[in-house]
């Protein structure tokens, strides 16, 4: 009866599909990606279709989120960053709804799959690098030498900065994955303790389950926020290499 707290992350192919040797079978995670897309799309379209000047509840909620992302972009990237608004907002909503829907018992947390978060983080990082070279050309390599570095330190700084650059997408992916996985593992462990403990002692881990569940709810928002603001920061670095565009010295 005892099942592993990691059992919840296991996948099995429900509908095997293969195109040209590429396995694209439908499994639980894929189904929940669709659920996330459907819920996010329906909510946002419903909220966006009622263009009232004095908003209702749903409209205010959607507007709050959109305004939140907009001000995040304006703060980190400035006006030209609004070109990336659809990408960043969709990223935020996808991650947020994945995290939130994953909290429903019996559902699947899409963002607890390392490959899912890795795709997002490498795509985001790739865009920032491509954008940097498009805007600044070869000078974008200067991102490896922080401003104010003495000449003799440059040979040391470049490898360090390369590592820090590589760490960006990796940490972005691992942070979200690890947070989601850890939260759900913790809930699973506490709940199995509740069941195992019976009525006599089971209430204690159950109380923790409730508390951690509330915490996970907050983490769902925070991780979505962290992922999108780091996206903004990385894209902002590509826009303003060392902040040269804003305050040239």
């Amino acid at each position: 009866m005892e099942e592993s707290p990691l059992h919840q992350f296991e996948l099995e192919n429900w509908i095997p599909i293969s195109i040209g040797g590429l396995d694209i079978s439908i499994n639980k995670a894929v189904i929940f990606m669709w659920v996330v897309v459907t819920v996010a799309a329906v909510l946002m379209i419903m909220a966006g279709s009622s263009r009232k000047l004095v908003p209702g509840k749903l409209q205010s909620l959607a507007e709050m989120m959109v305004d939140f992302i907009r001000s995040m972009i304006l703060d980190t990237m400035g006006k030209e960053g609004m070109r990336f608004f659809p990408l960043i907002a969709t990223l935020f909503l996808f991650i947020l709804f994945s995290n939130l829907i994953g909290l429903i018992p019996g559902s699947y947390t899409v963002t607890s799959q390392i490959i899912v978060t890795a795709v997002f983080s490498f795509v985001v990082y790739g865009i920032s690098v491509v954008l940097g070279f498009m805007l600044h050309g070869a000078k974008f390599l200067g991102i490896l030498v922080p401003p104010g570095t003495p000449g003799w330190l440059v040979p040391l700084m470049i490898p360090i900065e390369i590592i820090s650059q590589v760490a960006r997408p990796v940490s972005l992916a691992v942070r979200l994955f690890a947070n989601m996985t850890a939260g759900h593992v913790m809930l699973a462990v506490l709940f199995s303790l509740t069941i195992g403990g019976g009525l006599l002692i089971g209430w204690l881990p159950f109380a923790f389950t409730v508390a951690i569940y509330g915490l996970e709810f907050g983490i769902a928002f925070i991780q979505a926020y962290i992922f999108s603001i780091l996206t903004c920061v990385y894209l902002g670095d590509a826009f303003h290499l060392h902040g040269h565009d804003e305050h040239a010295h």
Partner: protein
Amino acid sequence: MPQFESHFFSSLIFWEIVSFGILLFILYKYAFPGILSVLEEREKKIKDSLEQAEHHRSDAERRLKEYEAKLSAAGKEAEAILAAAKERAQRLLDENEQRLTAEAERIKGDATREIEQERRKAVQDIRSQTTELALMVAEKVVQRSLTEADQRKFADEALEALSKSYQR
């Protein structure tokens, strides 16, 4: 960990990109323009409203000052009118009083004079009538024994006595 089982990676990557692409397309096409335009519209509306409110406020302030000035002017005018009316009433009152006093004085004087005249006339009348009466009486009493001079003398004495008693 089940998340590192690489044989699910291909389908997860594929469906993630497809789902994300669909969501991005739908939101980009149908949700974001509406919400962003509403946000901008509201921002503009709030800004406009604030400006308008500021405009109205200054307008109201200006008008209030105007009205206050008008009000104080009207108050002053009313005061002036009141003072003038009071003065006029006082003057009329004084005039009337003077006129009435003079009239009363005149009537009193006339009456006094008339009374005096009447009195004198009455005295005159009485004197002449009494003289005649006394003469008549005396004539009857001492007709034969007295001379003309005695008669006059007695008559005068009698008259004197009479007028004395009358004057008293």
